């Protein structure tokens, strides 16, 4: 298995790991976003629980499997971050002194915000888990097992809803450059498809982000109560 460490030690090996872990997270995000949308099915009735609560219950059907998935996801996130930090350290070591005059022509807000934007997203994820999974960030607004009520109560606070919306904007930047880069890194990109891949990147990022942002915005506007 020494090829594993050789591969991970190489530039392209690390880039591949970042791409693959990124792809896993994109798939997770799609599922997570679709699950969230059930908030719009409403609070349920006296006899029937909210769709969102039912769904949350469904995810917990087997606590062992839930935890296996959680551990896999955490490993993915940690691997993604550790690898990126390594790559970035190598990049700064490779750069010489800064140019006195330098005009970038293609590097843009998307490509240049990957590192700090990514770290901001990580901070947000930690907060998000403390908030709506563990229920410790805003303990007064949280009741275990009542996902729907927790979401509504939290997002009625403009500050909390605001943090979530800002996070989705960060996510858009990260996802767009990430998705396009993924194809390039895994060796499936071609200039003939570059425009299509970029459109796909924007579209996928937009769908995921709108899906996520619709929940705090919807609650704030009183669409769901």
């Amino acid at each position, binding site marked *: 298995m020494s*090829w594993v460490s*050789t*591969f991970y*030690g*190489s*530039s*392209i*090996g*690390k*880039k*591949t790991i970042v791409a693959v872990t990124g792809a896993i997270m994109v798939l997770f995000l799609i599922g997570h976003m679709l699950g969230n949308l059930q908030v719009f099915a409403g609070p349920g009735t006296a006899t029937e629980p909210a769709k969102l609560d039912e769904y949350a219950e469904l995810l917990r059907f087997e606590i062992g499997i839930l935890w296996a998935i959680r551990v896999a996801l955490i490993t993915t996130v940690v691997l993604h971050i550790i690898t990126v930090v390594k*790559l970035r350290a*190598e*990049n700064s*070591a*490779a*750069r*010489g*002194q*800064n*140019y*006195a*005059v*330098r*005009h*970038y*022509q*293609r*590097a843009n807000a998307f*490509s*240049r915000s*990957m590192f700090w934007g990514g770290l901001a997203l990580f901070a947000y994820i930690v907060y998000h888990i403390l908030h709506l999974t563990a229920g410790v960030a805003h303990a007064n607004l949280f009741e275990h097992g009542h996902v729907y009520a927790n979401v509504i109560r939290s997002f009625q606070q403009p500050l909390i809803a605001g943090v979530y919306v800002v996070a989705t904007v960060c996510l858009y930047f990260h996802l767009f*450059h990430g998705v*396009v*880069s993924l*194809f*390039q*890194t*895994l*060796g*499936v*990109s*071609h*200039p003939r498809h570059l425009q299509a891949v970029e459109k796909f990147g924007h579209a996928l990022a937009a769908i995921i982000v709108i899906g996520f942002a619709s929940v705090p915005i919807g609650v704030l506007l009183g669409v769901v109560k």
Partner: protein
Amino acid sequence: MNLTLRVWRQKGPQDKGGFVDYPAKDVSPDSSFLEMLDRVNEELESRGEEPIAFDHDCREGICGMCSMMINGYPHGLEKGTTACQLHMRHFSDGQTITIEPWRVKPFPIVRDLITDRTAFDRIIQAGGYVSVNTGSAPEANMIPISKEIADAAFDVAACIGCGACAASCPNGSAMLFVSAKVTHLNGLPQGEPELLERTRRMVEQMDAEGFGNCSNHRECEVACPKEIQMRNISKMNRDFIRSSVLSRVFGTNGKS
């Protein structure tokens, strides 16, 4: 036209270096950038000062020696042009032009605008060749090569190894150069047999030289005077994964 040059002067690898301003008077718009520098140097010499050291050889855009950052652009702003092929008509009278050497760690500055780019030579030595049995010259048309494959190989063979890709990269990555050399040979029937070894060795050497990692800023693609495309990096990634993962796991040549 009259210009002001802000030139990076550095006596040697250990010297700290700094900018010095020089006037460039009566510059002909028809002269090339290097000819303009030649005239400034003649004046410096006539005054007994040390001329500005810069690299050059062919002066026709094919050797890749004339590496310099001109006003914040590698080889200047003109698309697909080396510094030696850049003409002064692209500048305007009274302009200040800042000239700097490539700034990337694996290319240490030798003096003024001259950097040591032997890191690229070592990458080529690691695998940028095809092994051929010696003997009498083979029949020229013995190995038929289709037009598309020949064209693609020619496109990347245009790389002159000037280093603009690494110098322009915010990450100090030389992947455009290495990918051009790798895909040039990997795509041809003569180079195919050594594809796995070549890709792995050249990437390993690139890493050992201390170059950074591509994160798709796409700066190299616009900086490249030969307009080499980043699709080659994608192809190199594919060949590298084939070489270091698929061939290990499946024990084949990684093809299936």
